């Protein structure tokens, strides 16, 4: 087991967003979290790399046990240095070029020399066919290019898990395909991923496991076929029938 979360709870003022989440992930798995907007999917992801801090709960990551309510700065940094995140709005560093965006984490997160970091960054950019954009700033790139660089920025760190927070939601429809292609390619290479998305076709075709999330709780979990074709829970059925997309 690579990651195990037990009874994770999170509240914003009086609003309980996560009501005791239990989730386990094995190395190489692609877990896709689906569910209505505002159900707490993104908050769950942000609690895994501590961009939000849980009120209570336990986490075991790479056999290291962590008390989510009481984390040290070293523990936070350790988890962040073994995970990576791809954001909905890309969040590329606006004051850095494409190649700098990719190399910064290697230099300042993994203490690699600038020379080595730039070599790795170049190689990664080349692998997705964006080497010609290495000196471009984010504002000079399309949304699709930015997000693909966002994915490279995450994966170049060789993380144990990549967290994807609705990576295609902010993209124009014609740009979604290229990003999903890169994600599928990563999944095929055995990268462990947790993906929050509304792309049901991606969930069906790429996920090893689909988790249906609603009102801060995991309602149902199973293989894509189990969740999409034979949902057991009424809420899951309602959600799936309300989606216009042909999945």
């Amino acid at each position, binding site marked *: 087991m690579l990651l195990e979360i037990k009874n994770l709870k999170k509240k914003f003022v009086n609003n309980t967003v996560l009501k005791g989440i239990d989730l386990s992930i094995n190395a190489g798995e692609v877990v896709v979290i689906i569910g209505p907007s505002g159900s707490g999917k993104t908050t769950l992801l942000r609690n895994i*790399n501590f*961009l939000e801090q849980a009120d209570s709960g336990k986490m075991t990551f790479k056999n290291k046990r962590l008390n989510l309510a009481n984390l040290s700065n070293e523990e936070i*940094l350790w988890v*962040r*240095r073994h*995970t*990576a*995140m791809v*954001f909905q*709005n890309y*969040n*590329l*560093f*606006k*004051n*850095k070029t494409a190649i700098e965006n990719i190399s*910064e*984490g290697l230099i*300042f*997160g*993994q203490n690699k020399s600038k020379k080595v970091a730039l070599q790795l960054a170049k190689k990664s950019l080349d692998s997705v066919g964006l080497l010609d954009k290495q000196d*471009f*700033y*984010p*504002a*000079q790139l399309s949304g699709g290019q930015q997000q693909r660089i966002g994915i490279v*920025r*995450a994966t170049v*760190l060789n993380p144990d898990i990549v967290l994807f927070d609705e990576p295609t939601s902010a993209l124009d429809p014609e740009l979604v395909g290229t990003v999903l292609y890169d994600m599928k390619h990563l999944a095929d290479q055995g990268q462990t991923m947790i993906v929050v998305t509304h792309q049901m076709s991606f969930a069906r075709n790429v996920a090893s496991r689909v988790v249906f999330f609603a009102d801060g709780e995991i309602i149902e979990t199973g293989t894509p076929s189990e969740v999409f074709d034979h949902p057991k829970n009424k809420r899951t059925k309602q959600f799936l029938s309300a989606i216009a997309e042909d999945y």
Partner: protein
Amino acid sequence: MKVSKVIVTLLNGLPETLSLLVASFFFASLIGLSMAWLYLRKNPILSDLAKIYLGIVRGTPPLLMLLLSYFGLPKLFALVGININDWAKIFFGIVGLSVGWGAYLEEAFRSAYLSVDKGQYEAALSVGMDVKHAFLQILMPQTFLIALPNIENLLIGLVKATSLVYVMGMVDMYSKATDLSNQNQGVYQLEIFIILALLYWLIVLLIEWLFRMFHRYYRYVEI
């Protein structure tokens, strides 16, 4: 009177004006950064200290700040047994203008810092940067770029405010102009002040050009 004589006489005061400008801007920036840092602390005492400084300085004319520096600092230093009465007047000018402009720079830095997209900081943390590197590599450069138009305005304002040091009897370009005008019983007063205005304008044009170059260098950085 020849125009060249006026220009040469006024330019004799240029080194003082420029020294005052550069030193005051440097120290005002240090004060501004420190006060912005204090203001943003969670500790209410530190934050209130910065707010008190801001309130007093922004509510006081810069001319008065110079006078307070010139007459007040020697008394303050005398309390700890240091006599600074003979110190160069430029010192008091730099202190007065730095304290006065520090408050405005603080506002420029603080508002810029607060308007940096929170997602930029989160992205820095997510790639494994610690808080220090996230600040130095991502937040601070972006804060600076956002603050740049305000910094430019404040620097231009400071160019003009340097002329206020005449109240302490310091010899800068403005003081050279009034001296020259008085020596000629005010006959060429208008001409002298027009030339003085043009010289100040040239300094401002130079500053605008420098900032334009900077903006051009970072034209693709949209924050």
